């Protein structure tokens, strides 16, 4: 049994088709109770993008919920040494990948659809982040914004290999090419890391509709100015992206750490759990 985190986390979301696109291919979901936030940015013709991101988000939320009912996310998995929470993200994003891949294969109108994915699971004063593609997770700690995930994109690979500097990358025309996506291949590798969180941290999950249009400095300024009002900050970020052109769907999930949520340890907790 995982603990109920709804008093430790405050969540705000916003999603918008943007100024150019007619429909929204992004999907988002959060469940503060189990400490889960999921964001997916679908791609593929007609409405296939929505279908792909929808499957990914629905799959992750239901499967993670079930997984967390059976396992403690902070327990260490034998053999790998990673926490159960990270293992659940890995297992369930693989399930989502298989589901999308199978749907795309069996229904011709969805052929070739795929989606990016970013998942954050909070447990025991920690957070496991899994991501595939160019949807991002940022951390706002005190006044400083840091990008936590590294895109799986051609651009990021060019930066890593030293072909482009970060400054040049801003002007690149090949921003939209991802090197990894959910549902394109029979298998996908989810990049998962686990970090410690602190009280007062704000985590931002967003699709490239935000991060391509709005500079990190502006995101930081917005979160800093509106940190007291999370729903407004989410709305403001979407508005900012639209003011800059809003060329893609924009989705934002904000999670603030209100309180300590260490997993109960020691004999008393075990004793109490025994009676439940």
């Amino acid at each position, binding site marked *: 049994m995982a603990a109920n985190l709804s008093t430790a986390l405050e969540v705000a979301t916003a999603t918008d088709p943007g100024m150019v696109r007619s429909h929204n291919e992004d999907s988002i979901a959060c469940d503060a109770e189990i400490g889960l936030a999921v964001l997916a940015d679908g*791609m593929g013709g007609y409405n296939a993008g929505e279908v792909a991101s929808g499957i990914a988000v629905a799959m992750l939320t239901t499967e993670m919920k079930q997984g967390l009912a059976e396992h403690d996310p902070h327990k260490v998995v034998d053999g790998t040494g990673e926490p159960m929470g990270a293992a659940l993200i890995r297992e369930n994003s693989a399930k989502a990948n298989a589901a999308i891949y199978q749907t795309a294969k069996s229904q011709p109108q969805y052929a070739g659809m795929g989606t990016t994915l970013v998942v954050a699971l909070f447990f025991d004063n920690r957070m496991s982040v899994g991501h595939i*593609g160019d949807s991002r997770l940022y951390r706002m700690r005190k006044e400083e914004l840091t990008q936590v995930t590294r895109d799986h994109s051609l651009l990021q690979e060019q930066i890593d290999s030293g072909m*482009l500097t970060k400054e040049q990358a*801003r002007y690149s025309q090949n921003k939209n090419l991802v090197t990894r996506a959910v549902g394109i291949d029979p298998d996908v590798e989810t990049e998962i890391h686990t970090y410690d969180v602190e009280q007062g941290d704000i985590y931002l999950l967003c699709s490239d509709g935000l991060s391509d249009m709005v500079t990190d400095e502006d995101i930081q300024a917005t979160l800093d100015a509106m940190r007291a009002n999370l729903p*407004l900050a989410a709305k403001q970020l979407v*508005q900012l992206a639209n003011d*800059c052109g809003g060329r893609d769907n924009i989705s934002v999930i904000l999670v603030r750490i209100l309180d300590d949520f260490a997993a109960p340890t020691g004999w008393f907790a075990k004793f109490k759990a025994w009676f439940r």
Partner: protein
Amino acid sequence: MAKLIMSLDNAVIREVPLDKERVTIGRKPHNDIQIDNLAVSGEHALIVTILNDSFLEDLGSTNGTLVNGNPVKKHILQTNDVVEIGKYKLKYVNETNAGQATVADFEKTMVLRAPIPKAGGGAPAGSFGDTQINPTATTTQSRPQQTTVTPAAKPVEKLAAIQILTGSSAGKELELTKNLTTLGKPGVQVAVITRRPHGYFITHVEGASYPVINGKTLDAQAHQLNDHDVIELAGVKMEFFFKNS
């Protein structure tokens, strides 16, 4: 077929069709496009054309290759891209692609496929054939002919400021140059003024009481500010006005 239109100081010199898979550009005579100029390296750049798509690669030249003013090492050419080598400009024109894509296609996220590295050998070769997204698909959509520079939010042309009317800092003036300006005291009452393309807006952020504009209390919605509006916030009155410059 795609072609390059080569010009120097805005005078067109010649047109080069990209009719073979590899077209080399450089100073030395064996290049397909020879540019006899000392600013150009012996082997300067290469354009690989596969079906309808052309890829530009800088071959480690001394003075570099620019596309639309930005230095590139590798670049997928889009129609109307201008490649600069030394003082020479090569405009890439691909009629088969031009004008087909709508603005809606702009910057759609696409997958650039790479085989998944696996412990037990690479992905089966056959899997490449049955998928819909492949490297060539990534460039068949052309984009609007503009550089895709991430624009900073274009603020309103006219600069505004607020002047404090009451309290200890009465008379002080604050220019609203930033996209976001916070007013008030954290924990008590905070509002922000956002600078947007079509004007300045004030929004309530936190606190039990809402800002008052010209004697009227705001609700949770953003409110557009007009010249000489009087804002009342946390017991301080201030005036919003546009600067004449």
